[in-house]
């Protein structure tokens, strides 16, 4: 399934990241987190590390989101997006929070890593009542446009150099917050840059977001950033688990972000609010899907 790569420990001092029995991991962030739930490679690779433990993931990633929760505001003013982000995390009662922010901020016209760093710290402060362990993922590096796109690239220059610096600064900001707060820092940026230098850029199809093959191909980097070495996994079991993970993620997505939300819970709920009960039905299905993941993990072991 995944080639065994020569791996280095995350840092000399940090012990490998560990999940524990009963852990509920809530993943927040921008498209990098959101899209992971559709492919499930990173989540599955982690679950396979502890096949006997009961660990559940809830992915709250949202395209275009920032540490201000701006993409979640919907009809409301931007500040409401942040409130929703905090509430959504708390509602899931996390014991571990994965934070994947910084990519959107790094590509803004007036990118400001200092502001980002402060707001990330505020976010963690506002999430601290959950007492969850926090893992801060760095943004991922941009790949040059020349190797991507439907036409095999245009060779047109993008603001690559500036972007590359900005992503690096935002990575450093995440690292600084991690160090000050005593959180685990998963430096995907450094790890992937290293890998890119070894193997060329092949993980994205738009320079920014990982394709299905990209998520699969970066499993070793993802785990390495957490200090975990990856010796691959028995492909049949990995696939079975991943399939169960995708089912759970799909059900959860429909519960967390149902279509027609305006009519179910929003300002037109007097019209279709009666159908909101359907969304509630999903909760039991998600629990069953969690159990199925456990079953697939333990089978053929």
């Amino acid at each position, binding site marked *: 399934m995944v080639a065994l790569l020569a791996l280095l420990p995350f840092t000399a001092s940090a012990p490998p990241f560990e999940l524990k029995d009963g852990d509920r991991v809530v993943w927040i962030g921008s498209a990098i987190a959101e899209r992971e739930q559709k492919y499930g490679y990173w989540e599955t690779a982690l679950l396979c590390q502890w096949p006997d433990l009961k660990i559940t993931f809830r992915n709250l990633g949202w395209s*275009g989101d920032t540490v201000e929760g701006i993409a979640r*505001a919907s*009809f409301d003013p931007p500040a409401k997006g942040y409130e929703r982000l905090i509430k959504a995390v708390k509602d899931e009662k996390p014991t571990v929070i994965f934070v994947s922010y910084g990519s959107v901020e790094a590509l803004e016209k007036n990118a400001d890593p200092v502001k980002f760093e402060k707001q990330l710290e505020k976010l963690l402060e506002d999430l601290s009542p959950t007492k969850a362990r926090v893992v801060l993922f760095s943004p991922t590096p941009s790949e040059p446009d020349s190797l991507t796109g439907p036409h095999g690239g245009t060779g047109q220059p993008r603001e690559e150099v500036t972007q590359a610096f900005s992503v690096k600064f935002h990575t450093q900001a995440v690292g600084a917050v991690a160090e000050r707060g005593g959180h685990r820092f998963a430096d995907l940026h450094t790890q992937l840059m290293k890998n890119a230098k070894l193997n060329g850029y092949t993980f994205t199809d*738009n320079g920014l977001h990982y*394709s299905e093959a990209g998520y699969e191909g970066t499993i070793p980097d993802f785990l390495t950033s957490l200090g975990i070495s990856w010796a691959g996994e028995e492909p049949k079991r990995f696939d079975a688990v991943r399939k169960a993970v995708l089912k759970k993620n799909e059900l959860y997505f429909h519960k967390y972000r149902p*279509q027609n939300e305006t009519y179910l819970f929003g300002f037109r709920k007097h019209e279709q609010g009666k159908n909101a009960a359907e969304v509630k039905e999903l909760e039991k299905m998600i629990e069953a899907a969690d159990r199925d993941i456990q079953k697939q993990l333990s089978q053929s072991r």
Partner: protein
Amino acid sequence: MNTAFSSSRICGLARVCLALLTLTIPAKAQRDAKIPDPDPEIERKSFIVAPGFEVNLFAADPMLAKPIQMNWDARGRLWLATSETYPQIKPGQTPNDKIIILEDTNNDGVADKTEVFADGLLIPTAVLPGDGGAYVANSTEIIHLSQSKPGIKADKKRVVLSGFGTEDTHHLIHTFRWGPDGAMYFNQSVYIHSHVETPHGTKRLNGGGIWRYEPRTQKLEVFARGFWNPWGLQFDKYGQMFATDGANGEGIVHVIPGASYPTGGNQAPRVLHGMNPGSPKFCGLEIVSGRHFPDDWQGDCITNDFRGHRVCRFKLRDAGSTFESREMTEVIKSNHPAFRPIDVSIGPDGALYIADWYNPIIQHGEVDFRDPRRDKTHGRIWRVTAKGRPLVERPKLANATFEQLIEASKAPEAWTRSMVRRQFAESSSENVAYRLFKLTPAQDDHSLLEYFLINANAGVSHAPMMAALFEMKDERYRATIPQLLTNLMRTEKSLQRDLVEEDLLQKLLTDASPRFRLGMLRALTVDPSAATAAAALKVLDKPTDPTLEYALWLTLRELQNHWIPAFKEGKFDYGNDIKKLSFALEAVQSPETIPALSQLIAKNANTPHRPALQLLMAKMGGSEELAEMIEGIDRDPITERLALMTAIEQSIASRRLPKPKTAVDVRLRVQALLKPSNESQEAIDRLLVKIAGHWKLTGLRPDLEQLAVATSGANREVAVSALAEFGDAESKVKLTEWATQAQEPILRILAIKALASIDLSRAAKLTTSLFVEGGSEESAALLINEFVNRKNGAAILAKALESKTIRSDLAKVGLRAVRNSPNPSPALTEALTKAGSLGAAKKEPTAAEIKALAVDALKLGDAARGELVYRRKEIQCMACHAINGAGGQVGPDLTSIGASAQTDYLVDSLLLPNKAIKEGYHTVDVTTAAGRIHSGVKVREAGGELVLRDKDDKEITLKLDDIETRRAGRTLMPDGTVESLTRAELLDLVRFLGELGKVGAYEPGKAPLVRTWRMAEATPENMNLFRRERVGVAAEKPAAVTWSAAYSRVNGELPLADVATVTTFKGVAPQSVMQFKIAVSSAGDLKLAVNSPDGLAAYIDGTAVALDKPIPVTVGDKVVTLIVNREKRQTALRMTLDDSGTARARIVGGK
């Protein structure tokens, strides 16, 4: 993935299946009679087709089900996005919506091959073949699907863009189209909030709009903003963009890059409008092109009134920088309840294809997601051909050579040309680029434009051909060039430099074509600088029109960060033309410009420019500037003072400007109000009293108190209000004194009302004692309104009413005020009912009663009688609702309500207005920091202000900073609207509404009829005016007349019985004085057609005109006055704008 399901010759089988299906229908039909027989032939026979055309079935279920959008590929295959999951996925359901490809392999006009290209999708709302597969809208994403080898289902998937909102499944991104420039355009509806990460940064669009995406560079931008449901998008032969909207009711829209169009919660302070106000909802858009269609159809827009079961046709004509659109006879109309045309496209054979969603139910807001009547299995593609005209030979483009493609690009069919461009877009290589570079295109405009577009699609530089493009003779071709270049300039920097080169700019901005000038204006924003802003203003040197002025306004706003700093330093070169500068300053309304504006006013103290500059300052200035203007008002010309002072007062009130630091002395003016003087001076002085209140000029207290006691009417009212605005203990004492001891009842009432803003409890106690003593109905309405529109007001008044007894009529008036308030208070309802010894409040009708009414309406109701009920003054339907664009704008337009809403829904809406509220008609309830409650439908929210439209059709502007709470409210339609009707009248009304929009006497009107009128009633003021001067004065000084609204009937006639008469003197024939408005967008001769000239005298803006001759008009709004001699005329009035005039004009509808 599995191999594709592909079946040739499926049609025979289809018919057998259909026959079987129809057998099962009776059982279903018994459960609900509204499900029609699904036999396509029955549906086809219901079509009334435009003369000279016929319709055949191209494909039907089970080949496809629930088509949403269609697009063609170069092989002539029809791709369909289809969804059986719509409107909502069930819990745990695995979505399995499909992309289907239909093919007519033997060219007989009937699809004989169907292929499932992809399945497992979730409500795919669009499909666009391209780049070796197809782009598909799949909920939050746009994905690109392709096959690793031909003949199998798509097995390769790439996420192209993600982060689109899903707040409403009929708003999801939709309507994918390739633009002539090679970019992909797609639309988003109003409830959607999208946050899309791209390698060039994150792009966000909260609300409706049109996106533009370049697959080649991955650049994504918002091309235009607004709309509710822009479900139609198409480009004409010359590259101009048009759209339709499935809610806004403005028909065909000419889309200008970067512009905003109306939508709920608009962020833009100014918007452009569609060309057919009063239209029903439309879906899909095609522009007729090709040899199969007759010449007089070329360039016409085809769209679908899916609620009214009609495929509509509009004819466009040039009108200045934009167009004018006129509805023609329908392509198809039908009364088949499941015929739902939702997309329309001309195919490779030149015929018109129509996607039929086929469903008796269409909405999913008002009708339950799980309503069993929702059809999930049917769907049709209809094909319209012109009888006796040859079809177009299908072009063979898929494997064509370079030369063959260039040859094909000369085709008159847009289909062929767009496919050729796609071939170049997809096969771009250095070789193709080189061959294009070497090619010398024919020099006619058509070939030149096509050559340019091919280059753009192939990603080849077009800088070398720019000069030739600008020299094109046909201005329709030339006009689109700046716009197309703008799109491309963003990636090609050298082009940008060439275009903004100064001499060229000067020439281009004064091009003979206004549409070209408009394009140039928009192009200027690509190279933002103070110089380009100054250049933009040159457009004002030539005649303008409203669209051109909008484009200038928009451009100046987009460039403001560049020219404002220059203006502040005195370096903004506006050619010393105050008109230009005023336009620029007014466009941005930036406080930053005030000091420089002050200097300019000083410089122009003795020039004719002063008033315009002063007015600008009144709108923009701060407290100090306004105080200075108030002090110096006498230096302004007498004729300008009232307008100026009105602007100053409004500015202070709406912008809540604080008291200035410098003293303002207006005592003499306030005192002057004690003695009568001329009307305009009194109006100015009253404004000063208001300002004294806003600024709490408490030094004027004795003068105001004297004014309140010694004067009456408006003078007294403003004085009492100003004292209340002081809000201090002294005012409270004085107001309480008047409230309890004043001799005149009106002063007591005014004082109580004013007190409510200072001390609600005291005002409540005083109100109840007034009511207990007696009090008039008028006072009850006035005072109770004051309480229900204040925070906690209703509760406090209810408490004060406890164990009191008041006259039952007062209680009734009070209850009406409560019912009409944003949140009717049950406590106050109960208190008033008790105090007035009224019976218990009326109970809500039961579901069974509603059902019975719906059944009886169809059985016993009469639409003609119903229209008379609808037009009754006391029910006020027309005050809030429009039909064919005529009537109030508070509630939804009812033009096609009958074709879309079930009868029970109509009964519900009349009896229980809050049960199901039309999209966009929910109120926003706002409480201000001052404790005022406002309720209205949101018009826009921009620049720190929220604008609501209240139940009286008035716009209320609120500062966002002043808003304390804000929540979604109810409808503005008052409960009990139809309470005064008898059951029979109600049935007639329901029947009438049920017929609106259906084929027949009440179908949507196409003729450009005058439907919105105003008339002079015989009020004392009007009679005085007419007797003092003469009736004709109404044409010269419309503002001096008091007008009331009148509307034509659905058939376009205004019965004279509904029109007021005035009889000036005994023995003089009774007359009617009426007006309507015409908006002229391009000067020329105007022709008005009237059913009979008997007894009519006509005026345009005060000048008498003959109706049987062309009338020369200039650009702008014109008022037409008709004076009707009622002795000489009894016939109803029916007035139409005649198409044959050279002027471009539109009848103004609305209220």
